[in-house]
């Protein structure tokens, strides 16, 4: 039967695994889900926890791995799988610390706290709860921070540090009130009631329990919690010997028929308490049977502490009924059981009761009682002292961390300021160099214009020299030579020569010839004058002369075309300077790199745009491959500044063309 169950589970697991493998990294969360769905299936839970833990090693993403570890730890603790819990939770804690996940750290500490609580290692439990509380507090998680305080109070009350527990509970209440968590507030006040009862402050206990009930009014489906409070209130009334009120309180939940099914342990407890109070009140009917019913239930569900209390109650009943043997027997049973499960409270109670009823061994029991009570008190005190130390030490560590944190913050702030200052300096530096560059550019432009003007001046001086020489020649020819020739011709014409008709005719021919010569000289003089006019300096002539000079030196054929529509005189000097620079730059490029035999320069005017094309038949280059040289960039920049466009077209072995177009004002 068991074997088949295991094999069945294995099959189920295998099929799950195969489906999981397709999901891959999600397998861990798949198993965790499976555990939630099949929480009754112990073997499955066992296997699934192991698999989930193994698969989680394959998760490479730290924060996901961490989350999974903590989930595995939580489930392992819930199902009491200690070895997996300790492994997973320890790893989770370390990983959380590594990736600075404060919530994860606190969560793992919480897990340890409750783990040690179940192990009744109060010292460690308290320590971990306290650390978790501090961490939750640091990330302002009011609810969990409060929960940790509540848990700490729980530990403290276990060790009878009632005042300490009360203080801690009130700290928890402060947090829960902030976020109106009524369920937690109910728990706190219930705990305060229990503490007050232990301190035998019964009025206060009643008040706290009623307060707990009031908080329960705020939440829905609070009947289950309410019944716990009724039980506690009943016990308080039992303590102040108001048995009738106690019976009433115990009866409220007991009258609910569903309770027996829902929570059999609690039902047995209520039944035991009710019967005990009826017995104390003096009732006789059905006392024994009721006690025995409760005991039977508790026995069947292995509720040992319940069994112990039940047995002591029965012993009291039998003692009252004068059945001493039975009474001693039941108490001895209780004593053995409480020793076995380390229930000190009931152990002491049993010893105390035995000393009363077993008169023969009373001294022995009393001695045992005193010894146990002393050692317990000593132990409790020792641990209680430790609580203060734990708090102190943890606070010290936190303070140190804070100090370190402060130092870190200080360091990062000063670092930031330093970076800020440095970047400011950098920006100022950049700005200044930009300004400098701008000034330089302005100077450059000015220099360019000056150079252009100088060139122009130089050219016009040259031209002036030529002009004045031409003028001199022209006027010499015109005024001097022409006049003298004229005089000579007319004089010759009037000579009264003695000769034959043929000679006279010949003379007339020479005279006519002279007149012809005069006309020619006049024409020459005229042409000289005209050239003075046409040799006026303009941009085109200057550019042409520049190109001709360089092309001549380099042995490149030059074809240059002007457009008569361009009125160079009217074009802005700035434009001409930049166009001239482009001509210079591209001619230099052609000479240096192109290995060209011909260069073609065309000026044109189209639709208000001044166009210039410079084309060579050189070896060209790939315009996409080459990063643009500074020369080309400069040219493009120059033309761009005038609002024009600059295009370069070239292919290897296919020459280079530069085309610029500038809008004319």
């Amino acid at each position, binding site marked *: 039967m068991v074997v088949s169950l295991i094999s069945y589970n294995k099959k189920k697991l295998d099929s799950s695994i195969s489906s999981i493998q397709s999901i891959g990294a999600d397998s861990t969360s798949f198993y965790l889900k499976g555990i939630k769905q099949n929480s009754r299936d112990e073997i499955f839970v066992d296997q699934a926890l192991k698999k989930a833990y193994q698969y989680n090693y394959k998760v490479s993403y730290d924060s996901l791995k961490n989350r999974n570890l903590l989930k595995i730890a939580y489930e392992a603790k819930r199902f009491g799988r200690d070895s997996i819990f300790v492994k997973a939770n320890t790893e989770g804690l370390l990983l959380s610390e590594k990736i600075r996940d404060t919530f994860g750290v606190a969560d793992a500490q919480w897990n340890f706290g409750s783990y040690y609580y179940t192990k009744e290692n109060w010292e460690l439990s308290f320590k971990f709860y306290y650390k978790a509380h501090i961490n939750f507090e640091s990330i302002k998680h009011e609810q969990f921070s409060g929960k940790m305080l509540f848990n700490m109070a729980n530990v403290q009350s276990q060790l009878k540090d009632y005042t300490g527990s009360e203080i801690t509970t009130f700290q928890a209440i402060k947090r829960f009130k902030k976020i109106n968590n009524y369920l937690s507030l109910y728990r706190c006040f219930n705990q305060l009631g229990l503490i007050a009862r232990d301190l035998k402050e019964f009025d206060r206990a009643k008040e706290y329990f009623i307060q707990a009930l009031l908080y329960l009014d705020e939440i829905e489906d609070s009947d289950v919690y309410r019944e716990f409070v009724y039980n506690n209130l009943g016990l308080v009334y039992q303590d102040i010997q108001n048995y009738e009120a106690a019976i009433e309180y115990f009866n409220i939940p007991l009258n609910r028929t569903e309770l027996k099914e829902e929570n059999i342990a609690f039902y047995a407890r209520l039944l035991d308490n009710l019967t005990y109070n009826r017995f104390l009140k003096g009732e006789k009917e059905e006392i024994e049977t009721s006690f025995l019913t409760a005991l039977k239930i508790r026995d069947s569900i292995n509720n040992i502490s319940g069994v112990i209390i039940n047995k002591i109650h029965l012993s009291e009943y039998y003692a009252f009924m004068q059945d001493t043997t039975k009474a001693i027997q039941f108490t001895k049973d209780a004593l053995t059981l409480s020793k076995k499960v380390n229930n000190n409270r009931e152990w002491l109670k049993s010893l105390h009761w035995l000393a009363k009823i077993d008169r023969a061994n009373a001294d022995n029991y009393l001695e045992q009682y005193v010894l146990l009570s002393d050692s317990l008190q000593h132990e409790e005190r020792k641990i209680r002292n430790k609580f203060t130390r734990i708090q102190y030490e943890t606070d010290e560590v936190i303070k140190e961390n804070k100090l370190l944190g402060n130092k870190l913050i200080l360091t990062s702030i000063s670092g930031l300021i330093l970076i800020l200052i440095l970047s400011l300096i950098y920006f100022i530096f950049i700005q200044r160099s930009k300004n400098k560059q701008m000034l330089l550019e302005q100077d450059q432009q000015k220099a360019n214009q000056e150079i252009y003007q100088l060139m122009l001046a130089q050219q016009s001086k040259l031209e002036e020299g030529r*002009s004045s020489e031409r003028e001199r020649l022209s006027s010499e020819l*015109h*005024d001097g030579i*022409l*006049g*003298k020739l*004229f*005089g*000579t*011709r*007319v*004089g010759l*014409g*009037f*000579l*009264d020569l003695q000769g034959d008709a043929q000679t006279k005719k010949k003379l007339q021919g020479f*005279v*006519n010839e002279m*007149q012809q010569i*005069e*006309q020619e000289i*006049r024409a020459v003089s*005229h042409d000289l004058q005209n050239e*003075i*006019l*046409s040799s*006026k300096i*303009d941009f085109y002539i200057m550019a042409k002369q520049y190109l001709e000079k360089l092309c001549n030196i380099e042995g490149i054929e030059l074809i240059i075309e002007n457009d*008569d*529509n361009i*009125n*160079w*005189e*009217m074009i802005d000097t700035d434009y001409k300077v930049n166009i001239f620079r482009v001509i210079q730059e591209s001619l230099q490029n052609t000479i240096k790199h192109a290995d060209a035999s011909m260069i073609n320069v065309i000026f044109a005017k189209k639709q208000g745009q001044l166009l210039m094309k410079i084309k060579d038949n050189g070896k060209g280059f790939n315009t996409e491959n080459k990063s643009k040289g500074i020369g080309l960039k400069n040219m493009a920049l120059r033309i761009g500044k005038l609002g024009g466009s600059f295009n370069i077209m070239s292919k290897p072995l296919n020459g280079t063309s530069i085309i610029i177009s500038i809008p004319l004002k």
Partner: protein
Amino acid sequence: MNSMNNVLIIDDHPLIVNAYKDGLLHLSKLEEALKFNIESACDCDEAISLILKSQATNGYDLIFLDIQLPPSKDKKILSGEDLGVKIRKLTPNTRIIVSTTYTNNYRLYNIFKTVDPDGFLVKTDLTNDMLMDAIKTVIKYPPYYCKTISKLIRKEMSSKLILDKVDRDILYQLSIGTRTKDLPKFIPLSKPGIEGRKRHLRKIFNVENKNDGELIKAARNSGFL
């Protein structure tokens, strides 16, 4: 008319002075009625002193005037043109034959306007026969214009364009290479005024948006230069 004609030849070239003398003598040989009393001057100052002296005896009947002459010493008379104006003022009855080597229409036009010569000869046009003819015509029924002058008059008369003196001056200054910015030194107008004139001239000659060279070419073609 059988009287003595007092003639003054003003030219700085002795060759030309002699040529005119020969011409006059030749004419008086051919035509008995024409008698000439010839004097000559080779610069402005000499010419003026002679003219002033002749005022006592009714002045010269005929003056040959060259335009290209060295200026007078006091620089008041810079050329034959100025001298012509002076002669007209001193002895209005004197008949003036201007003979020049200039063929520039502007200069010729200006001489026309200022001196209004009775005979207007361009030396390179001139033959001996034409010289005879010119002297005869000026003495008997002036005026006499040689071919170049006739052509100029025809062009001027037939032209639809009307340019005043300032317009012509601007065109002339541009034609001899004066820069636009220097024009106010020669023309009694402000710079913007001159610019306006130039724009107007470009419009007239249909060379809008073109440079001064084109304007001058057009003006020359139309006979204004």
